[in-house]
């Protein structure tokens, strides 16, 4: 399966972006299809069945958000990375509502996109609904209700700040993946912080306290030295 060349569909109306990204992704071993609006993306998904879609949000005719909504509505679960230009939390909640598997803020480094593409493909179970589109996530005794913004451990509600909850959400939707601090900052905070890594570590400490998770012998969240964090148990998604 990994021998076979995977097909990516790249949908963005900015030619300078796709003209540079497409050859870059092709050099990385992918077959790349390019479209410049959402309607064309829908057609290409039906005719070519790509393995992954990279979808810009702001596009003429049909924007990325609407495109994704229609795809999911039609029960098409092709993994999708949304390129959003806004890092606000509400925007990310929307991305979730539409069932994006991951999102990346513009401007991004192409290597970062490649890393995202690979991570999402590794996680993807073809044809299946992904964890990113599930409202209720369960990992052993830990339950996260994304709609109600609530987490509980062994039935006891956890007292978490919204940021810590968002960190937990990102980790649980990306289980068994080494998530760097920069990645968390980009996805959860939406900002680049000068003292970013510490900002992440502070929330992680809060999360671990709430989960009663010992960093030295963790059950839920493991620190990968010099790389980031990994959510250990397998996660089950519903709804």
């Amino acid at each position, binding site marked *: 399966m990994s021998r076979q060349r995977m097909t990516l569909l790249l949908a963005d109306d900015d030619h300078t972006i796709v003209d540079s990204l497409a050859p870059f992704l092709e050099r990385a071993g992918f077959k790349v299809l390019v479209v410049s609006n959402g309607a064309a993306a829908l057609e290409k998904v039906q005719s070519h069945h790509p393995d992954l879609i990279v979808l810009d949000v702001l596009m003429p005719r049909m924007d990325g958000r609407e495109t994704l909504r229609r795809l999911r509505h039609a029960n098409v679960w092709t993994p999708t990375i949304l390129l959003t230009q806004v*890092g606000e939390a509400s925007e990310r909640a929307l991305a979730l509502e539409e069932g994006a598997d991951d999102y990346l803020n513009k*401007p991004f480094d192409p290597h970062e996109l490649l890393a995202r593409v690979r991570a999402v493909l590794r996680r993807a179970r073809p044809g299946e609904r992904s964890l990113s589109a599930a409202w209720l996530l369960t990992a052993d005794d830990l339950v996260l209700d994304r709609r109600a913004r609530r987490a509980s451990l062994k039935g006891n509600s956890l007292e978490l700040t919204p940021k810590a909850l968002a960190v937990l959400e990102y980790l649980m939707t990306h289980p068994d993946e080494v998530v760097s601090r920069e990645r968390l900052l980009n996805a959860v*905070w939406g*900002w680049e912080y*000068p*003292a970013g*890594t510490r900002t992440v570590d502070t929330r992680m400490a809060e999360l671990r306290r709430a989960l009663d998770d010992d960093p030295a012998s963790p059950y839920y969240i493991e620190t990968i030295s010099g790389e980031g964090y990994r959510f250990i148990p397998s996660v089950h998604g519903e709804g």
Partner: protein
Amino acid sequence: MALPLFSGALVSILAQGFFQPVPVLVFKIDVGMVAFIAGLIITLFLLSFYAGGLLVERRSQHMLERSLKEAESGRRRFLRRLDHEIKNPLTGLRAALVNVQEARGTDERQRASNNASRAVDRLSRLLADLRKLSDLEERSLENLPVNVPELLQDMVDAARSIPAYGDREVNLLISRVPSPFPTVRGDRDLLGVAMYNLVENALKFTSENESVEVRALEDGRTIVVEVADSGVGIPAEDLSNIFEELYRGSNARGVDGSGLGLALVRRIVALHGGEIDVRSRQEEPRGTVFTVRLPVSKL
């Protein structure tokens, strides 16, 4: 001297009981006249009211116009500065791209692409800070107790973890008695950005043998954080402008940075109900002190 007055008053009181009043001067007023006079009085009254209202309206109109004009000139100033901040890295990027295309060897090409990356980094930083500024107006702030000494320690460590400042000392002084130090209510991440920017600025504008000091004090109502340095100081004519977006004082030209750092600090402090001040001297004993005052959180 007042005798005639007293006696007159006495006579008038006594006379009232005994005599009918004697008509000396008689006004005959009919109903029409009463209506006319009443109308006149009401009209005068309304007129004075109207004129007063006009005056107030004119004044508020004037004030509105002035603040609109100020906002407009502020916007123009901002655009002019933005234009300038983008122009330089973009020029660098163009030149670097030409060099990449025309490079005659790997070394030349490598150098050109390094320069291109640097220009891109500068533009990215500018954009990121612009986003932060506009985000601040919309995002919801966390409202939780923040441990200021811990936050300051984190931010000082973070600033010193930048390779360029690795061997620099930052003196952190926090009053320990009585303990514990009171908390501030707010958004830890944002307050961190503010404190970090101040500390990093202090390091940026001082050299190795100059000192940087961060102090925190409290008086029960206010937490005062001072970030002080013994650097070159800020010229007096720049002091009132340095919190403006993209303003660059004469000392800060050619220094790395988006030009939005202090504007961000001021906004974050204001969002927490606090204030920021600066004082600076360019003659000995020279240096700059930024003072942030934040309200202590109520229990």
